[in-house]
């Protein structure tokens, strides 16, 4: 009995939300508008003032274009810049907790485009909250994301300038070729071994830093390979996303010691905050990777 009452109330709320949503559509004629990567037209009456970002990369971009103070919600993973930590967290964002997001009363929610997030966006739209779904898997996708977030927040000039900086990074060739180019493998997981392939942000970073990803011939962003293949390709370095410099557990195991770089403990420990996500600090990441390639023995 009680459950039914709750349901009726929920239905009423949804109906109200639908009305609110319809009103929003009418009022949005002159405000900022973009087309997102799901092909939806996102139009706002006025530039967004209360934003929830559901991806650390978006949080970084918003701060970089000077819209950070308008953030009213972020994910538990959004830890950069430090000012982001002052923004209330709405959970881990996988999948988004729609109620927690709605409770922040945002006028724009920025989501990474995925099946789960598209469903969440639909639910938010039904509550009258505008959403934008953006791709952000590769370096090339940073500029279009920055540009559109600039438009939606009324920071068009800042968004364009960040986008230009990202575009120039994409089109640049390695600054000065390293005397003897180093090769590396990005090892994401050890059992089964998962490595990063060409269709990824990290592969591109390695290229810009003057290093060669030994699995550049794999078109997918990541793939399962065998230890034998890694040993045969014999990379100079094993790059792992890790905030500490402790050698991974598998480094001491006999089957892994067949890989020369593991045996010689030639690990590059890349901090996850800087390397684990595409963001405005891509240039800094390239420089940092290059520095580590040159200084790690």
């Amino acid at each position, binding site marked *: 009995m009680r459950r039914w009452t709750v349901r009726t109330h929920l239905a009423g709320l949804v109906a109200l939300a639908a009305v609110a949503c319809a009103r929003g559509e009418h009022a949005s004629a002159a405000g900022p508008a973009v087309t997102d990567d799901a092909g939806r037209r996102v139009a706002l009456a006025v530039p967004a003032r209360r934003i929830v970002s559901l991806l650390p990369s978006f949080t970084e971009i918003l701060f970089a274009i000077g819209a950070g103070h308008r953030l009213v919600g972020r994910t*538990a993973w959004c830890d950069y810049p430090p000012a982001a930590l002052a923004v209330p967290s709405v959970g*881990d964002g996988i999948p988004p907790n729609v109620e927690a997001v709605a409770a922040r009363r945002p006028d724009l929610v920025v989501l990474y485009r995925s099946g789960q997030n598209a469903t969440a966006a639909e639910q938010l739209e039904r509550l009258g909250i505008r959403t934008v779904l953006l791709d952000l898997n590769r370096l090339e996708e940073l500029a279009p994301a920055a540009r559109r977030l600039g438009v939606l927040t009324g920071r068009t000039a800042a968004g364009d300038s960040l986008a230009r900086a990202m575009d120039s990074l994409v089109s640049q060739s390695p600054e000065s070729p390293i005397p003897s180019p180093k090769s590396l493998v990005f090892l*994401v*997981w*050890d*059992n*089964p*071994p*998962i490595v990063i392939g060409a269709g990824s942000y990290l592969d591109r970073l390695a290229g810009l830093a003057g290093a060669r990803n030994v*699995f550049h*011939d*794999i078109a997918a962003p990541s*793939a*399962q*390979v*065998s*230890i*034998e*293949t890694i*040993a*045969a*390709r014999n990379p100079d370095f094993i790059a792992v996303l890790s905030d500490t410099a402790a050698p991974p*557990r*598998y480094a001491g*195991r*006999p*089957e892994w*010691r*067949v890989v020369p770089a593991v045996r010689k403990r030639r690990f590059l420990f890349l901090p996850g905050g800087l390397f684990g996500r595409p963001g405005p600090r891509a240039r800094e990441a390239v420089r940092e990777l290059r520095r580590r390639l040159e200084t790690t023995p």
Partner: protein
Amino acid sequence: MKYVVLAGAALATLAAALLVGPANLPLADLPGSAIVWQLRLPRAVLAFLVGGALGVAGTSLQALVRNPLADPFLLGLSGGAGLGAVAAIALHLPGPWALPLAAFVGAVGAMALVYRLGLMGGAELDPRILLLGGVAAIALHLPGPWALPLAAFVGAVGAMALVYRLGLMGGAELDPRILLLGGVAVGAFAAAITTALVSLAQATELRNAFLWLWGGFSGASWTTVLVMLAYAPLPLGVLVASARPLDLLALGEEPAQYLGADVRRLKRVVYLAASLLTAAAVAVAGVIGFVGLVVPHLCRLVWGRLHRTLLPTAFLTGGILLAAADTLARTVVAPRELPVGIVTALLGVPVFAFLLRRWTVS
């Protein structure tokens, strides 16, 4: 004669596994290469042992529950092992032994639960457990967003029923039908806890635990071969020694009893041995389906129903199938690798269909 053929095929498979690989070693370099000694050889041996263990476990379980669809993983072991492994990752247990050991503990825990379930209630089939098992099976095979909540629900109901029934338990007879159904239910329960752990934990590592659960031999080393060699011989010996009474069991429990088999003891011993064997296999290689289901049928079709022949041939056939499948998994899409379960199914199903057709026609 058949043993000569099978042994020859086994040697050929192992030799092929040593000779080919994504590294393209020249023939002259093979004997001294670490790739051969530390990677290819332990991997081939492990695949062979796991395939053999699953073949034997499947054969004896199908004889025990007298059900052709019985499979080592239908008894809740994979669910238990998965839970153990995920818990190990969640708790950050260190060392190379932690994961297989936790998987083993999980599988044995699930086994003990199912065993207790199977012991209860005498020979009558409980319709409530039947229903529960059915729903659990559906939940496990449902795709998409419905599977997890349903499995979680069934898991919760299963736990309730389990506790309730365990409290009521009085009989001491191991009922094979309840064993099967209880296995499915306990498996779903363990899977529900696993899913809860993975979705609630912050560590992204846990997502990768699922990759491990799908099964494969990427982590093969002499250590894992040693784990398998430590656990497998005893249950294998017990099962081979039970070959004759298992033949009698095919006639039905009562006739077997009259013909001199200690049926009650036989059922317990066979169940425990087959479960231990499966648990060891899961602990070192994750859940590799299909081998334990189809290899017994394949051997029965070709070599007849006597377990004295069936058990050794199932060991060799299972070993050959899995070692060959793993060699293909490593090489056909190099530099990438296929999950071995896909290859076993692609390789085994056509062979099985062909044999089934040929034998049912004649």
